[in-house]
């Protein structure tokens, strides 16, 4: 009889321990999955990788990839996600998602880039679940340059205006280092309820505005940047244009 009592007691303790964990998870879990999408667009329509863009400067080009390493997605006080890796060609248009309260994020703020000193810390030491960990970051960390690439845009340009698809030249802009760190803030973001548990906001990235905006970059002349000092002036122009091209 005594043994039965002991067993019953142990049983209860174990069951309560399991139950408590579950209950805590339920209590602590915010009520919605908040998804932030970033849709590249061309003339207000969805842009696809390799889709040709006519530059007002008289040549054609297309993007083969657009990537962003960002941090501190939130509203400045509440944080939805500490870091994200956006890779348009590989993983599509999801910028980030996490559990959160919709009321916390009527305004949305995030960094294009990684703030110092985190930017120059050892990426091998980042949690292995973080996109900033070196095994997760892909080619968005410079092993040879300090820190992360904040934004990379890559593609091809047709420099020969003969009516034929030559696309004879590659371009790539790898934008990083502290002087290219930018913060993007958008007020009164539209959240759409996808289902009972999910809300989504879809931001737009006007791909034409990146290189053909008010301060255009002539890809026939400037086709590469590693954010070196000699490339600073047009790296800044492109980074500012990129940040401005992200809209609600």
């Amino acid at each position, binding site marked *: 009889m005594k043994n039965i009592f002991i067993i019953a007691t142990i049983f209860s303790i*174990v069951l309560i321990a399991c139950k408590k964990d579950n209950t805590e998870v339920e209590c602590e879990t915010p009520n919605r999955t908040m998804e932030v999408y970033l849709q590249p667009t061309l003339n207000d329509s969805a842009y696809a990788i*390799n889709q040709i863009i006519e530059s007002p400067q008289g040549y054609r080009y297309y993007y083969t990839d657009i990537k962003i390493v960002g941090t501190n997605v939130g509203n400045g006080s509440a944080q939805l996600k500490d870091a994200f890796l956006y890779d348009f060609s590989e993983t599509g248009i999801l910028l980030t998602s996490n559990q959160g309260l919709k009321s916390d994020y009527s305004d949305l703020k995030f960094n294009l880039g990684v703030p110092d000193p985190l930017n120059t810390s*050892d990426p091998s030491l980042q949690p292995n679940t973080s996109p900033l960990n*070196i095994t*997760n970051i*892909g080619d968005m960390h410079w*092993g040879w340059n300090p820190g992360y690439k904040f934004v990379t845009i890559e593609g091809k340009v047709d420099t020969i205006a003969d009516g034929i698809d030559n696309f004879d030249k590659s371009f790539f802009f790898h934008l990083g280092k502290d002087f290219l760190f930018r913060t993007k803030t958008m007020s009164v973001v539209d959240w759409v309820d996808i289902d009972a548990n999910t809300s989504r906001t879809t931001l737009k990235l006007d791909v034409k505005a990146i290189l053909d905006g008010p301060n255009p970059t002539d890809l026939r002349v400037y086709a590469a940047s590693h954010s070196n000092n000699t490339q600073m002036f047009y790296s800044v122009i492109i980074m500012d244009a990129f940040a401005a091209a992200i809209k609600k």
Partner: protein
Amino acid sequence: MKYLGFILLTALIFSCKKGEIKPYAIPYQLEEPSHFPKMVVPLDNLLTNQGVELGRRLFYDKRLSGDNSMSCAACHAPQNSFSDPSQFSIGIDGIAGTRQSMALVNLGYQKFFFWDGRAKSLEEQILEPVPNPIEMHQSWKDAINKLKSDDSYRKEFHAAFSTDDMDEYQVAKAIAQFLRTMISGSSKYDVIYKNANGLSLTPKEQVLFSTVTNEEKAGYDLFLSLNGGDCIHCHSGPLMQLNIFANNGLDATFTDKGKGGVTGKLQDLGMFKVPTLRNIAESGPYMHDGRFQTLDEVIEHYSSGIVMSPTISPTIEFAAQGGVQLDAFEKGLIKKFLLTLTDEEFLKNPKFAPPN
């Protein structure tokens, strides 16, 4: 009756922890280099001493092939940096594959497997070669029946996975456990890397660093230089590779679609997994199709042999002029540096050798 409480409690504890290490297995203490990221090990296949040892035995067991002539090590031989010195590996029926056998090293840090990246986990990758008709050419059912007929295997599977009814997924898990232990991080390059990044060296590493020559250091600088070797867009960091795909300018058109054959996307045509350069001097021939026999040929390719194509990696900055145009001295320096990636401790580690 007096043991019933203990048994019940034990059963409950283990039933609460889903996918954890089995009660009989001892967790394996993975030794990761200090400058490496922490390996992400799948929760349903945590490393155990029993699992790793079973995996090693399976890796070298020829009974996994249809005619009992070929083990995994046939195409991933320890004496060849766990690769194959042949351009294409030959299966049990004498049929050659179409891609070079990849060197098995630091696989626990990889995000995708095979040259075309079609496997997303190591376990998934391991399931392929056994039934592949041009490789080991045996159904998993037959392979498992062979293993089941061996009492020692039944005991080892029981010890590793608490099962009396093994299957191919447990075989894959065991081999994956073994492969995850195969970490290379003790080469000259590692101390060069640590020193360059301000990471402290152990006394043993300091001794190794003292043997780094000026030519090797100059080769490293050239390897990194954007106006020199420009190698770092694909090969950098502690793993000496990025977890990416690239078209490195081998061909103008593609007989092998690479990643494009998996995704069906035009932009992925001719894109292949960027391999590590670790132990590169020991793991030739090179490229996905093993077209280059020597490091000199590889260096020459990047120097003057780049071919343009629609999907060529934009970061091959000097593609339009055929490559980075190194002179003979510079090529020699790059080669000297590449030799620092040879990790003798890894290559001769008895833990990775065939079991007795």
